[in-house]
């Protein structure tokens, strides 16, 4: 009887393992993208979204960016800017349609600007130059009457009261939304229904399974043509190891954020391809520039000599290579190296890389000169360092990096007390705490934009309270010249003149070590070789980071047939578990049965002998 039960159980178990793995009609071309953070439904709400990862595939803007950060046409085929910089005219492509077949016209552009200006506390600022106060709206702003006109369905005209250097990128780079879908919807209190979602990009979000996946389907009305893929599914794998396993087994087709330490193992997998792309994130150490801390103690890093000594005490390239497995670009200034401005490089080439040479001997002398000689134990000072365990700067690599920096600083007598907090606590302490703050240094970051004003304004200016509690200049670095230059940059419209201004700001920030630049972030991507056509490089900077996953890239990805170099687990469908091997399973089961049977037999024999 027992053996019959066992036999039936084995048959049922094997059936469960097999069923669902074979026989599924595989005519759909699906790319499963492994992601480690769950996309929230609010990220598809154009008014409430805080990031634009997930609307990037659905809503192109009037302009886009190629992989090198050069502006290219998107929904607008051409545009004109009047010589006085006050009138912007955009000409939409012919025959644009939404996914439901409705025409995409200039009226949708007007609606987008109006809706986001009046309702989105997160994005209203994009059209600031053409806004007026209006208390009745959610944001307190409305579009200036007559500022945006639509003389015909293919033309949008925007008129500014005064020139604005930032307007073109902000206004034209943002997503265009469908009036006929969103009009009347209260997006401040609820989210759109994905089952009826209307989009113009290559893929339309269609279904979200809570905690599991976000499904996009191909848009047959995309202006570049229906994508080769039928679906793109962002599937949640909460741990990167699980995502690696899914990629290797074929359950996932791409993993866009491979941790550096996982790359060597994935490189050995024959059917996977590895690529890298530098995004626009700048990771740096911010110094507290106040002379005294919140507890009244003197703040050593407020002295330039101490900051220089810290910079020269760490061999950054080696440290980053060790902690990030070589996947980084060594930073040397506040403007990210791959983010040009309208085709011009903003990099200040006079700033060396690394910013300061590694020279602990000189660092020690600087500390002596600054009034921090070493005591009998070799200690000079203790500094506190705050960092997050989550978000952009929170990872095991970041922690390893800081531990290496800590050990190098210890060698010159600086004891660094690492304070690692969860993301919310870290942000509270680093950014929201009122100056002068209670820490000496912190790990911080910024996501650059195609306008160099972003990094200059937010990293090193104190304009509009940016150096106070809640500002992004969390260390409170202050230089009135930098503030003046930043204002000048915002009001200068010539590309070359603007670039020169921001290069000068970068130079001052470097000379005064406003921040210690660490690296510009590099993403490592791994994908199954059956998917071809990814365009690696800069993402759409208005839409966060993913280069290979931005709309123009995904729109042209194709699924090729399995080759002899691919593993036997692959099929064109990328469904899980299609490499079932009866032989291996049978062998494992037989071995287990023999081992357990032998153990039971021996045990019974011994018991019998004892009695």
């Amino acid at each position, binding site marked *: 009887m027992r053996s019959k039960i066992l036999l039936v159980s084995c048959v049922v178990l094997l059936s469960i393992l097999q069923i*669902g793995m074979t026989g599924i009609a595989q005519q759909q071309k699906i790319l499963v993208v492994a992601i480690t953070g769950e996309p929230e439904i609010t990220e598809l709400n154009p008014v409430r979204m805080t990031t634009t990862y997930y609307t990037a595939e659905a809503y192109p803007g009037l302009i886009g960016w190629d992989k090198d950060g050069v502006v290219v046409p998107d929904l607008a085929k051409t545009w004109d800017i009047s010589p006085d910089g006050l009138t912007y005219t955009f000409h939409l492509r012919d025959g644009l349609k939404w996914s439901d077949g409705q025409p995409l016209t200039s009226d949708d552009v007007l609606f987008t600007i109006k809706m986001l200006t009046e309702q989105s506390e997160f994005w209203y600022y994009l059209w600031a130059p053409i806004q007026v106060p209006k208390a009745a709206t959610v944001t307190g702003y409305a579009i200036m009457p007559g500022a945006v006109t639509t003389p015909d369905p293919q033309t949008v005209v925007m008129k500014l009261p005064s020139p604005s250097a930032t307007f073109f990128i902000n206004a034209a780079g943002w997503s265009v939304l469908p009036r006929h879908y969103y009009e009347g919807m209260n997006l401040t209190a609820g989210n759109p229904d994905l089952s009826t979602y209307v989009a113009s990009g290559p893929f339309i979000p269609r279904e979200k399974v809570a905690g599991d996946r976000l499904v996009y389907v191909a848009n047959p009305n995309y202006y570049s043509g229906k994508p080769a893929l039928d679906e793109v599914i962002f599937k949640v794998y909460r741990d990167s190891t699980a995502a690696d396993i899914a990629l290797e087994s074929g*359950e996932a087709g791409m993993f866009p954020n491979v941790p550096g330490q996982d790359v060597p193992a994935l490189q050995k997998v024959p059917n996977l391809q590895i690529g890298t792309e530098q995004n626009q994130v700048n990771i740096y150490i911010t110094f507290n520039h106040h002379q005294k801390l919140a507890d009244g103690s003197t703040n050593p890093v407020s002295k330039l000599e101490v900051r220089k000594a810290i910079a020269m005490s760490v061999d950054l390239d080696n440290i980053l290579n060790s902690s990030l497995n070589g996947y980084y670009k060594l930073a040397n200034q506040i403007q990210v190296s791959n983010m040009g401005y309208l085709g011009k490089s903003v990099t200040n080439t006079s700033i060396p890389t690394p910013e300061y040479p590694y020279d602990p001997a000189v660092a020690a002398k600087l500390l002596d000169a600054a009034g921090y000689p070493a005591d009998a134990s070799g200690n000079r000072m203790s500094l506190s360092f705050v960092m997050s365990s989550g978000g952009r700067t929170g990872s095991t690599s970041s922690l390893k990096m800081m531990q290496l920096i800590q050990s190098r600083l210890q060698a010159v007598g600086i004891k660094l007390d690492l304070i690692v907090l969860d993301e919310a606590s870290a942000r509270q302490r680093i950014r929201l705490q009122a100056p002068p703050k209670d820490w000496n240094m912190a790990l911080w970051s910024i996501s650059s934009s195609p306008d160099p004003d972003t990094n200059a304004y937010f990293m090193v200016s104190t304009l509009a309270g940016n150096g106070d509690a809640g500002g992004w200049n969390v260390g409170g670095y202050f230089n009135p010249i930098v503030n003046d230059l930043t204002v000048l940059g915002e009001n200068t419209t010539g590309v070359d003149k603007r670039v020169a201004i921001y290069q000068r700001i970068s130079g001052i920030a470097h000379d005064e070590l406003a921040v210690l630049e660490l690296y510009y972030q590099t993403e490592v991507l791994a994908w199954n070789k059956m998917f071809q056509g990814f365009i690696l490089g800069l993402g759409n900077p208005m839409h966060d980071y993913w280069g290979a996953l931005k709309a123009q890239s995904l729109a042209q990805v194709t699924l090729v047939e399995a080759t002899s170099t691919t593993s036997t687990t692959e099929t064109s469908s990328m469904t899980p578990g299609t490499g079932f091997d009866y032989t291996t399973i049978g062998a494992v089961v037989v071995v287990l049965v023999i081992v357990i049977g032998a153990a039971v037999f021996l045990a019974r024999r011994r018991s019998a002998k004892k009695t």
Partner: protein
Amino acid sequence: MAVAIALIFVVGTLNFVLVHLVPGGPGAILLNNPRMSPSAKDAVLRSFGLDKPLQEQYVLYLAGLVTGNWGTSYFFLEPAFDVIASRIPATLLLMVPSLILTILIGIVLGVLAARRPFTYVDRFLSAFSFFFYAMPAFWLGFVLLTVFALFLDVLPAAGMSSITVSGFDMIDYLRHLILPMTTLTLVNIANFSLLVRASLVEVLDQNYITTARGKGLPERLVFYRHALRNGLLPTVTMIGLFVGFILTGAILTETVFSWPGLGLLTFDSILRRDYPIVLGLFFIFSVMIIASNLVTDLIYGLLDPRITYD
């Protein structure tokens, strides 16, 4: 009824205080866009009632607990109750089978060990239990993932359902359940097997067992009819306590296997300071543990005639 209300008040207050004591409120996450103006930030906080004084938020929260209005999630922009409710099935679908399997296998192993105390069987089963008890759940999860999802490629690597399946499919669900359930079961078996073994060994030493044997009853009867029922009493207590343990164990397992249950929701919501969700979850967990302990006590009263309740 009065006790229930008092309990809700105490639990709710404790949860509210604990959550708000943690540094870094929702503003640290919600208002991270550096371009938001002060008025925009105020508008966001106002939309969630975060501009109100803490005392007022507390009163509204307590009133909401009773009326079922647990507020709106800052991140889902949906009623917190609905968000939590949508994840409960996933957690139950993982927890209940795991709990049942853990109890059954734990009891069976404990019984097997107790029937042959201090023999190789006993030692092997105890070692087996300790081995998995000492093993971190997330590590075991990854080992199982690597073996079955990667090397053998017979089971999925993550989630509760396949991408090609819409709606609920029993076979698909079972395939996805195998690995996380096995992980949770293996690391928790020792709690029951060792307890049952120890309890039974003690019971088998009692006078009435000696009497039963002396009367000539078969050993099987002595064991299963007389010893086992008494020996399982402590296990009932353990089951009641275990509801809480398996919830916390589920958080790690849900992370490894990306199982979209309450554990992951708790973890994410705490990090994001999504107070309505966090407070709602803590309340549910508190109620579950209180209820399971109450049920345990009642069952105890049914099983053991020596115990009576007023």
